[in-house]
């Protein structure tokens, strides 16, 4: 009964490790798309046999947005700004994976300290913490602006999974509102990155500390 749910959650963890380990921008975007599809399948798998049409519809919207729309927007931003396909990390990929192992342990430790959570499923909350930490790490430890958008998407995935740990049945209007916000955010960030790139000929956030006059 919980086997499909466990498998999806473990796949989410694996995608986090892969994103931390990869050095290529396009691979990272592709993996984040896979993670988005997993996140979309999650509420369906969690409710099991008695899946309502609302939940199925919500899953479908998430899959379309996170699995297909966002990656396409990000890929277009890369293509139009014709940046390099390397990530340019502050923290190298091997060190990132080691950080990931530590983050995993921290996530499970945090979960063991939070006993007030309703124990809907013993894996959902730690996976949520781990995904959130991964997203924050990707925002902090990578230079390119695009990677920070990917980190933001992963962070949001983690927050969504955490919401699943607290309450399975979030009103669909709230979820759709959040998704719309994200869509606009990614859209705006894509445009902003394009503008930054046209103005400065790079999108290395490390060099964006001086004003250009």
């Amino acid at each position: 009964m919980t086997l499909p749910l466990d498998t999806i959650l473990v796949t989410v963890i694996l995608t986090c490790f892969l994103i931390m380990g990869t050095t290529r921008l396009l691979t990272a975007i592709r993996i984040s798309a896979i993670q988005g599809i997993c996140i979309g399948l999650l509420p369906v798998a969690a409710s099991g046999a008695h899946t309502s049409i609302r939940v199925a519809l919500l899953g479908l919207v998430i899959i379309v947005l996170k699995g297909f729309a966002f990656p396409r927007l990000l890929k277009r931003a890369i293509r139009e700004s014709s940046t390099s396909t390397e990530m340019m990390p502050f923290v190298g990929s091997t060190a990132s994976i080691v950080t990931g192992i530590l983050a995993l342990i921290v996530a499970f430790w945090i979960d063991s300290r939070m006993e007030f959570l309703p124990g809907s499923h013993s894996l959902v909350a730690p996976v949520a913490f781990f995904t959130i930490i991964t997203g924050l790490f990707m925002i902090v430890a990578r230079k390119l602006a695009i990677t920070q958008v990917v980190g933001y998407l992963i962070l949001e995935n983690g927050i969504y999974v955490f919401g699943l740990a607290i309450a399975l049945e979030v009103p669909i209007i709230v979820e759709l509102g959040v998704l719309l916000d994200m869509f606009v955010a990614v859209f705006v960030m894509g445009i902003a990155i394009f503008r930054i790139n046209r103005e400065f000929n790079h999108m290395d956030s490390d060099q964006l500390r001086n004003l250009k006059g």
Partner: protein
Amino acid sequence: MNALRILPILSGLLLAPLLLGIVNRTKARFGGRRGQPLLQAYFDLLKLLHKGAVYSRTTTWIFRAGPSIGLAATLVALTLIPIGRGAPSAMHFTGDLFLLAYCLGLVRFFTVLAALDTGSAFEGMGASREVQFSALAEPALLIALAALARLSGHLSLSDITASIGVTSWEVAGPALALIALALFVVFLSENSRIPVDDPNTHLELTMIHEVMILDHSGPDLAFIEYGAALKFWILGSLVVNVGISGLGGGTWVSIAAFFAGMFGLAVGVGVVESTMARYRLLKVPRMLWVAVALSVLSFTLIGRFTA
């Protein structure tokens, strides 16, 4: 019952070089060649055993003792390996999985010492790489074994393989799949297979295992080659034992699945070697860290699943 007890050792001793033949055949098929005979590894061993050994004057007794100690330690490790749920290993006791890991460590230690004993800079380089990579592969192996022990509640390889079954896969299926994957990466790395090292190259600056044994000849080389084949069998059987544990059935089904799994694994290694390129040396530690991550993950997951 007695026949079943010696089956794991006997099959390992007899069939280990055959697996290398299967790997080479698979690679030849991919390359459009017919390939060497399946039994070529046996012929090579016989040929080497008939030859005399040549020793450099700069080497000491360590160089001569290395291959024998290595083969002896590998043989001890082989006695600990069970075959599926069907045949327990010839020797098993609580905690024998540590003996397995450290026997393999002893083999590596003496191979490295013998390589350093020659005083060749080239062999020292190979030794340094071998130690670097196995320092990462060993934690992955031990944590994966610890995860299996945690799942089954036993500390002996035979008891672990005997108690992990269909229900374990229902409870902790994803974790077991991750363990099998981590063990497979360790298996490729420890046997100097392709993403880590290319067993076919002999004059390249990137090789690891082959460079360490360049100065061995005759029976010593035969010992090392046979030991390497046995190591392939031992680590492969760990992967296969986890992989087939989800199958139901009795003793003979399990044994048949084990042998099918071993030959399938050899074909799989051949496919990996034909379709992948060797990683840059800098990328290998990353792959091994991923294996460590998989082991740690499966260990924590099993804690959750069984709680």
